[in-house]
């Protein structure tokens, strides 16, 4: 079913046009991003229920203006007389007397040159969120909790979370008139189990450009998650060392995201904060590795028609058969580096600055079979699921916290489980060690990605199973 456009966005158009007109008198480039993002989060735990607006809910505007030297922005969410807004923008960000008196040196930017474009986009989902009552959504989550408790007496808490979000955005500038509406949803099932004083957790995330149909997927995985958590109660600590590993699609997605996603964000190139800048056109991974990022490269939570700077989403090949061929950029960083923008300029909300950010990031699948990958390992681990990741683009360091690993000995899974695992290392060493890549392919878009420790945005990541060599601790 087609996603209906936001009435607020439609009604705001005359206001936005007036602001543009008011500012165009003084500035050679002006744009307005308007947002109306709404949704609900439904949370059922073993001991309670919560129903609230999604944390991604936002409604407001951000104006960007070029004053002949650089760009400045103003975010607001109250609709006053457009002339008042124009005056506020003038005094707050561009003709700011205190800024002028401070004698701060400014970086100069060229004016953004755009092609005339007037387009709108509406996404589709199987079921619209408003067509399923809150009562039914909460009842289904409650039933999942109930079944989870029936599956094991070791379960001390079970969290079932379902969140649905409708995104509506408008981007108007001197030459562009763009609108988009789409829906994404995500869900989590978390099982907390306990034996004596040992507590373990397993989880699974669900996501996509979907509506309440996501609940069907969640119900189908219920028992496996509880069983997995119970198995983790008998997990052991890993002996630190370097091992042959197979990364599940979720873990390979984390590797793609942390290892080379953050490392090729072009605002990091502008700041000379990314080692990847020195490696453009060079081999950075084994020839088995081809890696993509892009809003149009896949259908997941970060698939959009245009980004928060009015650039259309693309499918960017970052690594082609091991060679680093492209970065991913926001508009201003791309201008600074004299490359085409890739549609990766994203804001946490209208209240925040746009940065170069990932969208859907993944390794391309190949032909290897998972069974063959396992049988090729004498001693190693099959790494499954993760809890977090972090990168160091300047020094190409990576940290992936893996939920658990299944031991492989003499080409077979032994049934022994280790948890948790810290996978660390030097990115090119890890990527160059990739020797097998499976045909299976999965993307996941739960959670959020930060820039440093803030500016959270929705992304997805994934890929096939990959075999590599990694330091585990």
């Amino acid at each position, binding site marked *: 079913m087609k996603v209906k456009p936001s009435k607020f966005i439609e009604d705001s158009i005359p206001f936005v046009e007036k602001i543009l007109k008011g500012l165009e008198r003084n500035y050679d480039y002006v744009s307005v991003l308007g947002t109306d993002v709404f949704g609900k989060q439904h949370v059922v735990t073993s001991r309670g229920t919560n129903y609230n607006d999604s944390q991604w809910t936002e409604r407001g505007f951000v104006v960007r203006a070029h004053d002949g030297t650089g760009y400045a*922005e103003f975010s607001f969410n109250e609709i006053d007389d457009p002339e008042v807004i124009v005056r506020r923008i003038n005094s707050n960000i561009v003709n700011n007397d205190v*800024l002028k008196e*401070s004698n701060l040196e400014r*970086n100069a930017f060229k004016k953004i040159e755009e092609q005339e474009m007037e387009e709108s986009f509406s996404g589709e989902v199987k079921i619209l969120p408003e067509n399923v009552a809150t009562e039914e959504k909460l009842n289904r989550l409650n039933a999942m909790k109930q079944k989870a408790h029936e599956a094991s007496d070791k379960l001390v808490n079970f969290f079932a979370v379902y969140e649905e979000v409708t995104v509506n955005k408008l981007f108007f500038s001197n030459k562009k008139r763009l609108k988009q509406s789409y829906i994404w949803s995500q869900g989590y099932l978390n099982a907390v189990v306990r034996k004596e004083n040992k507590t373990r957790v397993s989880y699974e995330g669900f996501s996509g450009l979907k509506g309440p149909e996501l609940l069907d997927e969640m119900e189908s995985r219920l028992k496996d998650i509880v069983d997995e958590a119970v198995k983790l109660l008998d997990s052991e600590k890993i002996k630190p060392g370097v091992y042959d590993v197979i990364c599940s699609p979720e873990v390979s997605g984390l590797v793609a995201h942390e290892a080379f996603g953050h490392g090729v964000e072009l605002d990091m190139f502008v700041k*000379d904060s990314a080692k990847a800048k020195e490696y453009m056109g060079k081999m950075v991974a084994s020839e088995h590795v081809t890696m993509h990022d892009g809003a149009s490269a896949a259908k997941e939570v970060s698939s959009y028609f245009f980004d928060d700077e009015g650039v259309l989403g693309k499918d960017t090949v970052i690594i082609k058969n091991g060679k680093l061929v492209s970065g991913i950029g926001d508009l201003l960083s791309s201008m600074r580096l004299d490359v085409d923008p890739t549609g990766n300029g994203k804001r946490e909300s209208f209240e925040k600055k746009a940065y170069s950010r990932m969208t859907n990031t993944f390794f391309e699948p190949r032909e290897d079979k998972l069974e063959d990958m396992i049988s090729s390992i004498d001693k190693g681990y099959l790494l499954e699921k993760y809890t977090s990741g972090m990168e160091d683009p300047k020094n190409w360091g990576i940290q992936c916290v893996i939920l658990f690993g299944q031991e492989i000995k003499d080409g077979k899974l032994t049934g022994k489980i280790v948890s948790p695992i810290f996978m660390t290392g030097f990115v090119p060493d890890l990527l160059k060690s990739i020797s097998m890549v499976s045909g299976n392919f999965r993307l996941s878009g739960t959670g959020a990605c930060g820039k440093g420790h803030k500016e959270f945005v929705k992304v997805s990541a994934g890929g096939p199973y990959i075999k590599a060599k990694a330091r585990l601790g």
Partner: protein
Amino acid sequence: MIEKIIELLSKSKNIDGWKIVDDVIEDKELFFIKKKLDMNRAKKVRNFYLTVYKDFDEEGKSYRGSAEVKIHPTMKEEEIKNVIEESAYSAKFVKNPWYPMVKPVAEKVDNHSEKQVFDELYSLAESLYDSDVYKEGWINSSEFFLNHLKRRTVNSEGVDCSYEKNRLFIEYITTWKNKEKEGAELYWQILISRFSKDFIKKRSNDSLLQTAYRANATSTPSVGDIPMIISGENIISLMAMFLAKASSRMVYEKISTFDIGDNVQGEDIKGDRLSITIDPSIEGSYYSVPYDKDGLPLKKVEVIEDGIIKKFWGNVRYSHYLENEPTGSMTNISVKTGNTKLDELRNGKHLEVREFSDFQTDHTTGDFGGEIRMGWYFNGEDRIPVTGGSISGNLNDIKNEMLLSNETVSMKNYSGPFAVKLNNIRISGS
């Protein structure tokens, strides 16, 4: 507009209570690449966070459902009315045991209201760069967010409290090049509400010198089972894990198994005994506030004393479930210092980690760890800067053998020992 929302709420026949948190945030932001201003931003936003309560009985038990929604200032009357009615309808299916709302207090609360100080931003930014004087190292980029929060909390029980607060968040990246001209970077944050240019200058100078150590660090060797010291900012996350054991929400949800009177450090304690206080008024803390979001006035509360839980902490809902007086939700923590000087903690072979790539803690399982971004390995003779590899551990394995430093530090939401020495940590060399 808040009067309009209250009027619509009072007309609704389908709700049994409500709470509104009205936030007005104005801020000025500066973004630098090296010493040049790359972009400046400003914002003025207002948001109303509305909670609607619906009471009902089932099989002789009383329940209180709720729905939390955001009211945008651009919503017209009809839209607000629809949001209220939809929330009231949905709250009927949120089946939580009944709990009270916060009631007004007679005592006067000092709300520390502050006027906006935006004009200071430019000179505060310059103070970060006052330490940027080294040939091999510099501040590579920085971001400044000076904001003024005006918060008012109103509820249907008659609570009407407010405060205004200035806060400054600085994020910056420092770079240092070693003799081989290889650059290293470290990431830093300053979160403060008392704006001292000297403090900012000292912090940025310390950051630059730490980056020099990082640039000249060698790979962390395989060191086997030796004690480790966590110093600096990451001690906050570790102490927060102990505090979580006494969170009323964690106890109610059965994530924490502790009760009042239990010792969070177990038996046979060989190291320092932990004393942790939640404190809403740590001087200069970004997170110091007079009320929580329910409108409950906040006070300093000793939660853990000598390892023993004296009181659970939490908001009015979970405190009621555990039949405790609510402390309110707050972020600041204060930890009593230990008796050992930092120099003594550094005796004997050990690994000290100052910066992790991302120090991860799991309050449910007790697991913690991270990749070492910058630390020192003391082999008994030399203190060698190291980087790479990782550490991991579990709270159960370290809780009874911790030594806290006598030296203190105040940063972010924390005031307490600068360092803690731990045993039973798995260290993986790089």
